């Protein structure tokens, strides 16, 4: 397992994605902004929990 490569691809790659210019995203997000989250978007556990995966 090449963990160093995973760090570069996922963590550093993600940071680069997060730094993209805002203009391209604004229109699509404006549509989402008009929506409301589902009414069941409350909190399940007062202490917080995790997300099970593979």
């Amino acid at each position, binding site marked *: 397992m090449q963990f160093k490569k995973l760090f570069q691809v996922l963590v550093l790659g*993600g940071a680069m994605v*997060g730094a993209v210019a805002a203009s391209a995203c*604004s229109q699509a997000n404006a549509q989402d902004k008009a929506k409301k989250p*589902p009414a069941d978007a409350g*909190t*399940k556990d007062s202490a917080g929990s*995790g*997300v099970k995966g593979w």
Partner: protein
Amino acid sequence: MTSARRAAGEAWAFRARVEQEAALRFDRLAIVVAGFDPGSPVPAMMRRAADDERRHTELCARLAASLGKPVVLDPEANLPSIAPRSLDERQAVLYEVVAACCVTETESMATLTTLMAAEPEPEVREVLHSISKDEVVHSRMGWAHLSRESAAVDVSFLAPLIPGMLAGTIDESLFAAPPTDEDPEGLLRLGVLPLEKKREVFLGTLEQVVFPGLEKFGVDPEPGRRWLAGAAAP
């Protein structure tokens, strides 16, 4: 039925449910993130990721059925937030994105990479390959969101919450002895990590990818490291 086929059928059925939950989560989070960070690329990524996860659900369910474990999914399923109640909305979203993407999707990517290198059966390889292409993006969108939030607000509140997040990520059996009838080679052929390998991948990914990533974006990894030392202690 062999022990490997039985265990693999259960694992793929579990994955189908995990993927269905991920689709619901990303649909919900996309709306909330767009509300406070309208310039972010993350909501669009989450909308695409939700579609990916619905496709993954089908792939995993089909494989589970072929291994003798049909999956019945609830089409009306909903998914509450996993964040602590003490957090405000923006903090709660960050908590959930870090849990779902920075931790779980990153761990999934490490698992998929390991499985792909283990010469799985052709049908299994095809599914693993298809899913892994998407999971790279799903992990990245978590790190992208954490990166943006760390530049905009204080994210240090996450540090003491990481142990609870990690505890909720694993099954208690991860640090137990493997089943006596475990067939490691058979499991790998069917796309499932034997317990010892699963533990190795989980620990390595936390120590070398997730904790350094959290630290890079201003979240102290020490509480998480202390939790891990305790959880993994013999």
